């Protein structure tokens, strides 16, 4: 165990607050165990294999405190730039880990679906919650996951019953505010899609204020047999480019013949660490995850993927792209574990990074652990600058240098954003990418 620093005490203090609050009896032992686990692990250092390239010393040094409920000064206007229009299933806003009804908007949803806050569901849907909450994302080596389990406040709860197809995308916006002191917030989401159901959930993470904050968010997704879940995780630069520390895990627990389609977009934050894990536990299921990172300045984005092919005949597809400018750093780690019996696994992993400056840096690490013999696993990674030949081609037609560069970067990003099925989000992110580029005479098509 590492030395007991002041920061650790801050987390311990926070735990005392959480512990003192009323909660279901089954949850407390889980929280306690998680807190003990966290105390054991401590905030990771770069000596930790999974944190080798992501130095979270700034997080370790800061003394974060749990933000108070309410009185946060967040107005609809202030979050409007980050909210995606078109989430017809409703927009649920969480401020500092607490559900904020006033900022949220209800949507049109079919009968049978349950959508709301986890805190409410703990009593209203006690059975489901006890069955699933903190039961699936259980990586024992992940200190931040343990911390989230210990300190989780609230989050989005979605339950789609058997056979129900929900056409209306549901959005959850997680806002962390930090106006005077470093704050921390812990949100925890649970999505349960029963057999043959379908649903789309969008998560947006953003920080408001000018003081450093720690935003921890974990989403557990239970994909039932033959169900389809589309999940988006968007981490946005808030009012300042580099005061946000985002650590999060999205875990998919998959049954038979089901589809989990995920998209991870990161456009800012001092440090953004996204762990995406999937357990393919039923034959014939597919996990698809695409990602686009676009960062600059001294921002760091780390996408850590871990997919377990536990049974035969499953497919997984990972396609992550990143654009790094200035001193930005990117980390990609893609672990694929093919278990002993998982024959006919078909897994493909691609990571493409575009460096726009000499100082930007990317570490990309595939890790394939294959214990079955009849499988197809491929991975490829490219890290490079803009293609000179392509740049010359565009310029040879008369496009100014800057415009041609912008267009190439835009094209690189757009190719990835094509994978977003929820069109309003795709358009929003396209516009965001476009705004970041020097316009030149490039224009944005409808």
């Amino acid at each position: 165990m590492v030395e007991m620093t002041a920061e650790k005490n801050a987390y311990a203090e926070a735990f005392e607050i959480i512990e003192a609050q009323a909660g279901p009896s089954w949850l407390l032992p889980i929280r306690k165990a998680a807190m003990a686990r966290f105390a054991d692990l401590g905030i990771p250092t770069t000596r930790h294999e999974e944190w080798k390239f992501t130095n979270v010393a700034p997080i370790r040094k800061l003394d974060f405190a749990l933000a108070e409920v309410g009185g946060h000064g967040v107005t609809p206007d202030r979050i409007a730039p980050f909210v995606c229009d078109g989430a017809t299933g409703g927009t649920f806003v969480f401020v500092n880990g607490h559900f904020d009804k006033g900022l949220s908007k209800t949507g049109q949803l079919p009968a049978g679906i349950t959508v709301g806050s986890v805190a409410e569901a703990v009593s209203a849907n006690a059975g489901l919650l006890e069955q699933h909450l903190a039961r699936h994302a259980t990586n024992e080596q992940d200190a931040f996951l343990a911390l989230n389990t210990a300190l989780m406040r609230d989050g989005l709860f979605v339950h789609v019953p058997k056979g129900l197809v929900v056409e209306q995308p549901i959005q959850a916006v997680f806002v962390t505010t930090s106006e005077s002191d470093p704050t921390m917030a812990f949100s925890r989401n649970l999505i349960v899609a029963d057999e043959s159901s379908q649903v789309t959930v969008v998560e947006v993470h953003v920080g408001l204020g000018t003081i450093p904050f720690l935003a921890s968010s974990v989403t557990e997704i239970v994909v039932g047999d033959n169900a389809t879940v589309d999940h988006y995780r968007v981490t946005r630069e808030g009012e300042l480019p580099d005061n946000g520390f985002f650590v999060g895990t999205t875990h998919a627990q998959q049954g038979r013949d089901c589809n989990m389609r995920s998209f991870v977009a990161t456009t800012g934050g001092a440090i953004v660490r996204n762990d995406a894990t999937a357990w393919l536990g039923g034959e014939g299921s597919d996990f698809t995850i695409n990602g686009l990172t676009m960062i600059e300045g001294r921002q760091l984005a780390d996408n850590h993927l871990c997919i377990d092919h536990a049974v035969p005949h499953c497919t997984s597809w990972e396609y992550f792209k990143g654009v790094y400018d200035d001193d930005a750093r990117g980390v990609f780690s893609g672990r694929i574990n093919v278990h002993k019996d998982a024959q006919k696994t078909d897994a493909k992993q691609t990571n493409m990074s575009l460096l726009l400056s000499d100082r930007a840096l990317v570490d990309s690490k595939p890790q394939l652990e294959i214990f079955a013999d009849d499988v197809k696993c491929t991975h490829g990674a490219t890290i490079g600058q803009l293609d000179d030949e392509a740049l010359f081609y565009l310029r040879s037609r008369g496009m100014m240098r800057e415009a041609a560069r912008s267009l190439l970067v835009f094209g690189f990003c757009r190719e990835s954003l094509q994978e977003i099925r929820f069109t309003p989000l795709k358009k929003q992110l396209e516009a965001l990418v476009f705004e970041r580029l020097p316009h030149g005479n490039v224009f944005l098509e409808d």
Partner: protein
Amino acid sequence: MMGLFDNANVKTTPGKVEKQRIEIEKTKMLEIRNLHASVEGHEILRGVDLTVNAGEVHSIMGPNGSGKSTLAQVLAGRDTYEVTEGEIIYNGKNLLEMEPDERAREGVFLAFQYPVEIPGVNTNYFLRAALNAKRKHHGQDELDAMDFLSLVKEKAKTVQLNEKLLSRAINEGFSGGEKKRNEIFQMAVLEPTLAILDETDSGLDIDALRIVSEGVNQLRSPDRAFVLVTHYQRLLNYIVPDFVHVLVRGQIAKSGGKELALELEERGYAWVEGESAVAS
């Protein structure tokens, strides 16, 4: 009523008009003098001299690796090639001092021997930006999406290019022939002053060759010039050149009229290489 033969005008202008006409006919569009270019310290062009007047079509032939593409790329401004000696004057301006995009806006166009694929960027999208950059440069109004679309429809038809391809990523998944027709399509849209076609005919079947040639012939005009790099005399049956040059080891070894192409077709390049070896 204004008379067709306004005496005052006739009196003051005939000399001037006559002179202008002669000047236009003989306008030197491109003048390459003693051009040397190298890549990674390796000299590829070793003193190229070539003059192209407005309205002319020049064909450049020569064995593999003789420097034809290098010449074409140097004209377009590719900076992988270092010009170590010589000069290029284009419409009275020092071409070598101009950026590639500035050259394009001034009317230089290169149809690439190997057009690049550019994921995520569709042809229409970038071509409109390119065309508008050029129009702006010449003080013309920029085309809006609707005007551009009708222009694209018209030009795509002339090269029989499926319009659907144009809203796809540039050259991605295009067949060889489609890539070449896309080059000619872009040329038709941009209406260059000096068009350099680097082996646009290579690998085309006869139908595609006809289409490409037709695209070029439609653009031929007294104030435009073409430099056609080709390996095959066949192209010259469809686009009849005024001059044929043979590039050997980075120098123009022989120049002649269109008959020279036929002679090359029959006898190969060896005899020219021999002649130039004797000459140098």
